[in-house]
């Protein structure tokens, strides 16, 4: 492991705070907008899904702040990426109701915080992705290092 691959304390904290802040914005927007989406129901309401997203985002944010291990960064990345993917999917594709999920198609950004939340989710994807890459040098993470090394050789 080269010393230059170990993230500095500053880099680590920037990534952790950035990820947590972005996930925090995502959580606040979803929590505040949830009541307006309670009438949108399937087996589960869209409001309930928003509250769940808010709680999961807060947990992921706390994990990268308190316990910045690869699993925490991966959790934050998955939470942010899934949220971003969902908002983009339902913004541009009318998929209707899916299983227990309500029909959440909404072909407009003119909803309070929706665009901000999408930007925050994108930022969280970037921060958490970088966090996962820079904190990969932990026991059991050697395969990731090997993959990166192979990519560098090919590049």
């Amino acid at each position, binding site marked *: 492991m080269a010393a*230059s*691959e170990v993230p500095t304390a500053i*880099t680590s904290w*920037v*990534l952790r705070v*950035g990820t947590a*802040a*972005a996930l925090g*914005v995502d959580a*606040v*927007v979803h929590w*505040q*907008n949830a*009541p*307006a*989406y309670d*009438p*949108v129901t399937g087996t589960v309401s*869209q409001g309930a899904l928003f509250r769940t997203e808010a709680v999961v985002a807060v947990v992921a944010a706390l994990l990268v702040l308190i316990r910045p291990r690869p699993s925490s960064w991966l959790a934050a990345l998955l939470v942010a990426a899934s949220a971003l993917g969902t908002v983009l999917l339902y913004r541009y594709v*009318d998929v209707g109701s899916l299983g227990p999920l*309500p*029909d959440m*198609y*909404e*072909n*407009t*950004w*003119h*909803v*309070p*915080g*929706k*665009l*901000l*939340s*999408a*930007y*925050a989710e*994108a*930022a969280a994807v*970037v*921060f958490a992705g*970088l966090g996962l890459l*820079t904190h990969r040098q932990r026991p059991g993470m050697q395969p990731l290092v090997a993959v990166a090394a192979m990519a560098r050789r090919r590049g």
Partner: protein
Amino acid sequence: MLRRPLLTLVMLAAVGALAAGCGNGSGSGGYGSGGSSGTSSPMGTTPSGVAMVTAASSKLGMVLVDGGGRTLYLFEKDQPNQSACTGACVAAWPVDQSSGTPKAGGGVKASLLGTITRSDNTTQVTYNHHPLYYYAGDSQPGQQDGQGLNAFGAAWFVVAPAGGAVSGGATATTGSGYGG
């Protein structure tokens, strides 16, 4: 050693994107730009706060507008004389408020005009039992950018003077119990 500056640049770009989102969010329909209470356009009311509803010609045919020419919409999720739009929904779709019995302009049937009292005790104008709204994305009188949008669980349409929704170029009545 080249990786560190690259990493810094990527992080700065991410921070910039987040900041851009914050700036954008403070604009139209942005986070914190609205509240749970409805806001009506000052253009659509008389000085005493009484709403005016009139008919105007548009690319979709004759549609309902307020006294200032701003397009009015109905929400398909609403029940007759009952609004299903609250909270963030009202921020995106401000209600057409009136402090008294709304006035009927040209082309509008006065008998179809009415009001309901919302949960926050504000008075919302109705037409043929449809609660009426503005769209926050319409910045100018005559704009109809909210037409056909799906938001908050159902579609939004401009309203024909006959009392039904205008779907595309044709008038379509919505739901049951809205007749009359």
